[in-house]
Every structure is written in C-alpha cells, then in structure tokens.
C-alpha cells in the first residue's frame, strides 16, 4: 500500500500558509493588509510565512505605492497553483481512502 500522506505537501502543513494559498487561488491579487485581516495575524507572523511561500516559488510579490505609502500585493504563481491543487487532491484521496 502507498504511504497515504506521501502526496501531502509539507509546505502546506501550516494552517497559515494553507490559508494564504486558499485566498490567493480565488483572488487575482491581494494586499498584505487584506491578508493580515482575513487571517487575523500580526505583521511579523504573516511576513515570515509569505517569505517561505515566495522562496518555494509558490507566490509572487509586487511592491507598489499608493501615494507615499507602500502597498505590497501578492499573487499565486503557476507552480503554486499546481502544488496547492495537488495538495487538495491528496487530502481528498485520504478521505476517500479511509471511508
């Protein structure tokens, strides 16, 4: 028998990183502040998870300005979309396998 959790992606073990990916899958682009509000996190906590996702090549960062204030937005990459969908399929597979 195949290892049932073999297809799960370690990067998405964290609820926060999983939340970020869920949000980015249905929103073309989202700002740091909106992410922070949706996930109810502090700046530092969210930033470290975003860096992790960026290093894995799953999300893209765009730095812009609104007036003089910085406005950093994030979007999902094609690799990120594929990795996250594979992860969801693996979760589904596990549920089906156990029933």
């Amino acid at each position: 028998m195949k290892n049932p959790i073999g297809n799960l992606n370690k990067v998405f073990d964290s609820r926060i990183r999983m939340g970020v990916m869920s949000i980015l899958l249905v929103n073309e682009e989202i700002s740091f502040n909106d992410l922070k509000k949706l996930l109810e996190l502090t700046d530092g906590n969210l930033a470290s998870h975003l860096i992790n996702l960026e290093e894995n090549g799953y999300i893209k960062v765009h730095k812009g300005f609104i007036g003089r204030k910085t406005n950093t937005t994030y979007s999902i990459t094609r690799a990120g979309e594929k990795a996250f969908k594979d992860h969801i399929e693996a979760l589904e597979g596990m549920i089906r396998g156990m029933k």
Partner: protein
Amino acid sequence: MDSSNQADQSLETLRDIRRMMERSSRFISLSGLSGVSAGCCALVGAWIASGLLRPYTGGALALESGYRSGNANELRLQIILLAGAVLLAALTSSMYFTWRKARKNGLPIWDHTAKKLLINIAIPLGTGGLFVLGLYYHTEWPMIAPSCLIFYGLALVNASKYTLTDIRYLGILEIILGCINMYYAEWGLYFWALGFGVLHIIYGLIMWWKYERGAAIKERG
C-alpha cells in the same frame, strides 16, 4: 494516529480552505433584513407617490394622463424629491442591517470584497441612472419604471459573483418584471412597487430564513 481520525482531519482542512476562499472573495455580510427594510421603504414611497398622482389621474389607475397635465412641473419636483428620500432611506436602513450582521460575525464591513461588490454594482447601476436621466430629459416618462427595474436587475446579476449567489435570482426576476412593464407602461408605479417593494421583502425573508435564522435562535438561547 488511526485512519478515521486522519480522514476527519483532512476533512477539517478542506473545510478551512473552502471557508477561506469564500470569505476572501465574496462579501457575505449582506443581511436578509436589509432586503426587507429596503422593500418596506419602496412600498411606503410608492404609496405616497400614488397619493400625489391621484389628483392628476382622476382616480383612474393609469398614470398616462397625469404625465401631460398642466400642473406637471410641481408634481415632477415632488416625485423626484420623494424618489431621493426613498433611495436614501432604503440605503441607510439596509446598510445598518448589513453592518450589524458583519459586526455580529466579527467580519470587517469595509474590505476588498465590499469594494469589489460596490464597484461591480455601480457600473450597471450608474449606467442605468444616467439612462433614466436621459429618459427624463426626453420626457419619456412611461419608460422610467421599466428602465429602473431592468438596470437594477442587471446590477444584481453582476453583483452575484461578488456576494451571496442567491441575489442572482432576484436580479433575473427584476429584469423579467422590467421587460413586461415595457408593454404595460401605464402600470409603471405598480410594477415598480412589485419589483422594488414586494420582491425585496420576499427575497430578504428567504435570505434571513436560509442564512441568519440559526444565529438569531442561538442568540436568544
């Protein structure tokens, strides 16, 4: 960890993902009571309007003769002021109930989903507003009520991508009502009251029953 426990956990994770997707892409705080209150405002407005129109229509239901009456300027001003007051009352009361629902659920009232919803309502609705002003300018009074219904319906259909999807059906009904009204133009006020009053109240009650009743019962204990 045994296997059923693991499946439960996966299910829980998938639910979280779904919740996050919905919450981040749709404005879900729209309250059913907002629909009910807006509908009541519209009905009161229509009732006052029918009273204002009565002297011009000589008791007949048809409004056609009133449009061409000699004293039409004063009537026109009264109707416009009334329409503005109804719109203001409907917006204020519906915003109050939506604000209340958002606060109860601990959700922000003004976030990027609210912004997206507003922009996508504003495009068809703003177009409709300008179109109706054009009708007014060209004195096409009988076409004003059907145009209001049709453009409002289109705005709701467009908005359904950014909030609770049920609003799509309300939009389609408004469009159908508007299209029928085109051919029974003298009944404009009645169609208007049906579309903006009755339909809003029915829709609001259904939405409240479907999404908010549970929370209201829990609160009462």
